[in-house]
């Protein structure tokens, strides 16, 4: 592995797509400014934030790996002199670090501008500075992005939509599983055993499990992305 190749790949991205990113950045800032200006607290809600992160993950990951149509573009990308792992890492750096920094800056800036504008028109309004990032959000974002990154290389056409659909199906499956299997178990059991189960759950550190599973999923999907890139033909 050669860091110079990774650097060159990232540099290539900025030369080819840097301008598009500035436009996107301005658009996000404007949107957040408007949302936070019209919101009651001058701030944006946590769930809206997650939704925005999710949306941007889709857009960005789709853009990064939008390389396999048409064939000429795929050949061009696959013959760029860098190994498959260097290409995977370069894309990872762009999605997980660069895009997220861009997004956080846009959120803070938009929120600040919207809040200030609100305060200017209504001086009695008490502006609360919103810190959009918690560790939970960050981990959730990374996992989502890794899934979309994989999806965008797995599906050659309309990768973002297909990945979203697969994810949706996946969640539905779990909801059904949860309500039917787990639900029926608790319905047919007595209150004491429910309490017992709750105790078991409480003794385990929930956050730790969640983080571990998330990190494993993140590693898994990046590994799959690399594998898929290796076996891609054009």
């Amino acid at each position, binding site marked *: 592995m050669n860091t110079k190749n990774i650097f060159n790949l990232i540099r290539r991205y900025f030369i080819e797509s840097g301008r598009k990113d500035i436009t996107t950045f301005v658009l996000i800032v404007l949107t957040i400014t408007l949302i936070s200006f019209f919101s009651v607290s001058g701030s944006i809600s946590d769930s809206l934030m997650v939704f925005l992160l999710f949306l941007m993950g889709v857009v960005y990951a789709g853009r990064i790996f939008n390389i396999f149509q048409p064939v000429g573009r795929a050949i061009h990308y696959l013959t760029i002199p860098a*190994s498959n792992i260097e290409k995977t890492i370069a894309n990872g750096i762009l999605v997980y670090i660069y895009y997220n920094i861009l997004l956080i800056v846009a959120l803070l800036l938009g929120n600040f501008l919207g809040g200030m504008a609100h305060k200017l028109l209504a001086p009695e309004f008490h502006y609360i500075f919103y810190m959009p990032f918690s560790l939970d959000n960050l981990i959730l974002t990374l996992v989502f992005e890794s899934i979309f990154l994989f999806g965008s290389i797995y599906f050659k056409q309309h990768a973002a939509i297909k990945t979203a659909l697969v994810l949706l199906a996946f969640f539905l499956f779990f909801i059904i599983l949860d309500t039917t299997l787990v639900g029926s178990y608790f319905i047919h059991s007595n209150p004491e055993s429910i309490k017992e189960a709750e105790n078991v759950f409480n003794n385990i550190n929930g956050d730790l499990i969640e983080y571990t599973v998330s990190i494993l999923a993140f590693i898994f999907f990046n590994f799959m992305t690399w594998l898929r890139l290796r076996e891609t033909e054009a």
Partner: protein
Amino acid sequence: MIQLQNINFSYHKGRTIFDDLSLSLEGGHIYGLFGKNGAGKTTLLKIIAGLRFPKSGSSTTLGQRAALRKAEMLKNLYFLQEEVYVPAISIRDYVKCYAPFYENFDNEQFEEYLHLFEITSMDDKLTALSHGQRKKVIISFALATNTKILLMDEPTNGLDIPSKGIFRKIMTMAANEDRLILISTHQVRDLHCLIDAVVILDNGHILLNASADDITDKLCFKITDDTGTDEPILYCEENLRGNLLVTENIHHIETKLDIELLFNAVMLNKERINELFNAKN
């Protein structure tokens, strides 16, 4: 530099493209790769570049398994597509973007080739150029990378008549004793005097892989009025200037290789050609 051994390949729909194909190519030559439509010329180039994986057999390029697409291999290989892909950036930015990947990229050469092709502005967006203009830029770039292997798929398609002449000139400038250039094409006239080795692909096999010297040593290409010759005739074609003949070279007369006649002669006499050229092995 390029080794294909017992390659079998077919696309998903089942038609066999290569059936136990073997081919070995060395540096210092400009090879012409010929074959009928659908013979698999582009696929062969793709297998060499590691873009397609053979179902069985091995494809080794610059000592590495081609399908691994290692950086060391890709740094020394350029694949020029028939329809070149260009991003929406200027020529100047394209060089800034991609030249750093190629250690031996020579900017002076690049500018000289562009100049010969009469492309003057480095600030034009590639996507705003016509297909032919784009191709000239990418050909110039490909040659200036100075990679050890250069694979070219129909390089003169889409070039206007004067540009084809310039292309030939530039190719002689870019060829050297280490470089392996493999040109796949139907436009044999465009390669006139340029190639010094011929590879003919047919029906999943390599029918001929021989240097031009070897070919003119074994075969005669001539125009005659009289049809009387004591040499076995492999191919004959009538023409205003007389009969165009390909015969076996019994009297050891050195004639000029005519690729078109050679191709037709090879297609008509597959077995005899095989005997003539592979006897020494």
